[in-house]
């Protein structure tokens, strides 16, 4: 007799429920339920053309820089306005600092906390996992909190405030980093690089970026104790022993938007990878579907420029189950995040891991998240050398009274898009698609599951009392439901409690 488990998720930065059907010890179906309505799009209608810059960063306390940048870029696109080169670099350095902090805190504070579950008590690496990952006081936890503390300082030096910075504006940034400011940023970044290389990698960034296959990764692990005892080395071993490489297969489709700071090698052009085939990124191929989302299907079309956000009242009979819409690219569900970024960039290591292991797993996603800082640090160092403190950081622009624009950003959790339409100097239409909306999407109009729903199907659960495997799969997408569930409340479903129903 199949049994349904409804699991309010904790440590996912917001409000999310996951419902799964278990037959025996295996998940046979899954639903990811965004439990709250966000409403920012509706709030913006009728407001001044630039109000998105103030309102949308409040969607999230973690990704506020990402939303601010996307909102500014949407206005720049609308105005067809060039952006100050210095300004572009400063924005992307701030965004990268936000990503560095998010990636490492997610892994060691949120994701790894599940690896100290009693379910793993008999595993040979359990005692060491507890020493490293124990909530609040594990070595990796404490080390990560202290090392990532310095990253917002970089944003504060460049932009004056974090979180909820307001220094990014259409045309560039309002701040003017001096040569001394830039030196200070370089110093902080060097300090972070030292910690990341010594503690997380056990080798240099350049060494880890040179690994281009699973065989080379295994050889790197065998090279010496420094690699095996580094946080990356231990997590890799622990993930394999605990079976994280065998759970969490999704659809095999990955999406990343363009991420261009420098017109150079450090840029990501964006793209869509499905079943190993890469296609260029075209934002017009994005659609939003609402058959199972609590919204009216109104609007002139499914594209975010046309899609409207009108909530429908909750009914038991209409099948709608989530406040997340179902975004699709070329009609397909797609996961987004550090792994998708790496695959779109055609980084050889993750591509080989996926090819050899039959698809992405919870472990592959987390390894990609643990390795992304290597590239980010190198990019930030390069961008800092490209800023000329003697040149302007802002280029004035004329804002048309009407028009439409799109701003796309690679936020910490993946592709973030803002679509805006202005009429008579007021916002007529606004749509935000956050990374988590892609990953935590409900089923679409063709009844195809969203990426996390799909990744949960087939997962085997060792203990019904502590189905920690489901947590691994869901958290490997680093959800941020504050973004994707369109309100914020301290009240809500009790977290950490299992409800087992018929």
């Amino acid at each position: 007799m199949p049994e349904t488990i409804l699991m309010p998720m904790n440590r996912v930065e917001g409000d999310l429920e996951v419902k799964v059907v278990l037959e025996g010890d295996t998940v046979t179906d899954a639903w990811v339920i965004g439990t709250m309505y966000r409403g920012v799009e509706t709030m913006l209608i009728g407001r001044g053309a630039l109000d998105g810059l103030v309102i949308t960063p409040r969607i999230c306390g973690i990704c506020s820089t990402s939303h601010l940048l996307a909102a500014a870029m949407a206005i720049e696109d609308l105005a067809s306005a060039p952006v100050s080169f210095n300004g572009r670099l400063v924005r992307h350095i701030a965004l990268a600092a936000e990503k560095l902090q998010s990636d490492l805190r997610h892994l060691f504070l949120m994701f790894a906390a599940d690896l100290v579950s009693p379910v793993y008590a008999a595993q040979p690496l359990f005692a060491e996992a507890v020493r490293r990952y124990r909530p609040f006081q594990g070595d990796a936890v404490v080390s990560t909190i202290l090392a990532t503390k310095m990253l917002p300082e970089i944003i504060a030096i460049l932009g004056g405030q974090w979180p909820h910075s307001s220094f990014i504006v259409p045309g560039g940034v309002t701040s003017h980093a001096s040569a001394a400011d830039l030196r200070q940023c370089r110093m902080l970044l060097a300090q972070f690089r030292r910690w990341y290389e010594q503690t997380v990698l056990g080798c240099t960034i350049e060494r880890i970026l040179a690994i281009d296959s699973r065989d080379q990764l295994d050889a790197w692990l065998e090279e010496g104790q420094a690699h095996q005892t580094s946080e990356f080395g231990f997590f890799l071993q622990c993930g394999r022993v605990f079976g994280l490489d065998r759970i969490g297969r999704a659809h095999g489709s990955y999406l990343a938007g363009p991420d261009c700071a420098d017109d150079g090698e450090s840029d990501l052009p964006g793209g869509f990878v499905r079943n190993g085939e890469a296609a260029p990124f075209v934002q017009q191929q994005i659609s939003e579907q609402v058959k199972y989302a609590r919204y009216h299907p109104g609007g002139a079309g499914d594209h975010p420029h046309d899609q409207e956000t009108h909530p429908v009242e909750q009914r038991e009979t209409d099948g709608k189950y989530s406040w997340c819409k179902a975004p699709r690219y070329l009609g397909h569900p797609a996961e987004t995040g550090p792994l998708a970024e790496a695959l779109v960039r055609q980084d050889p290591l993750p591509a080989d891991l996926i090819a050899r292991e039959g698809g992405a797993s919870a472990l592959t996603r987390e390894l990609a998240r643990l390795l992304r800082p290597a590239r980010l640090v190198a990019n930030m160092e390069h961008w800092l050398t490209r800023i000329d403190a003697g040149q302007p950081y802002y280029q004035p622009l004329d804002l048309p009274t009407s028009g439409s624009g799109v701003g796309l950003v690679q936020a910490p959790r993946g592709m973030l898009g803002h679509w805006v339409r202005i009429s008579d100097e007021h916002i007529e239409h606004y749509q935000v698609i956050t990374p988590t909306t892609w990953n935590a999407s409900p089923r679409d109009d063709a009844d195809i599951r969203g990426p996390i729903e799909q990744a949960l199907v087939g997962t085997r659960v060792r203990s019904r009392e502590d189905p920690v495997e489901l947590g691994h799969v869901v958290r490997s997408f680093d959800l941020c439901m504050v973004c994707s569930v369109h309100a914020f409340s301290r009240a809500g479903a009790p977290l950490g409690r299992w409800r087992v129903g018929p």
Partner: protein
Amino acid sequence: MARRAVIRARIVCVGNSLIAGDAVGIHVLEELRTRTLDAGVHLVEGRLGGLDLLPCFEGCSRVVLVDRVAGYGRPGEVVRLDAGDLGAAGASPELHSGGLLYLLKALPFLGVTPLPDICLIGIEGEGNEAAVRLAADWALEACL
């Protein structure tokens, strides 16, 4: 040249000014801005900061948090929670999302020296003008 006063205490007000139900900490911040603070007392706009408020706990002997609370009194009531009360709140790691409570639980392990005395001035519910004024009074008293 005037010497900068040593920071003795920080009052850290947290909340979200855009959400009426969660704005009361910020209202207290605005009230405190109209008051005269002792030279050694710094006022911090903590907003939605969680772990990133760690620097606020460094280099001072007392931190006074101001925030909305739930379940500690009647709506509009102002309460003071000290270290023991805060330790009991959110004792399970499952209740944390890397926010302020996570920081408070992790703080003893982060090597912060000296570890400041911490208390929270809480306002039950959305608050009102009287509660905001009272909370501001209590926050200043807690710095003494």
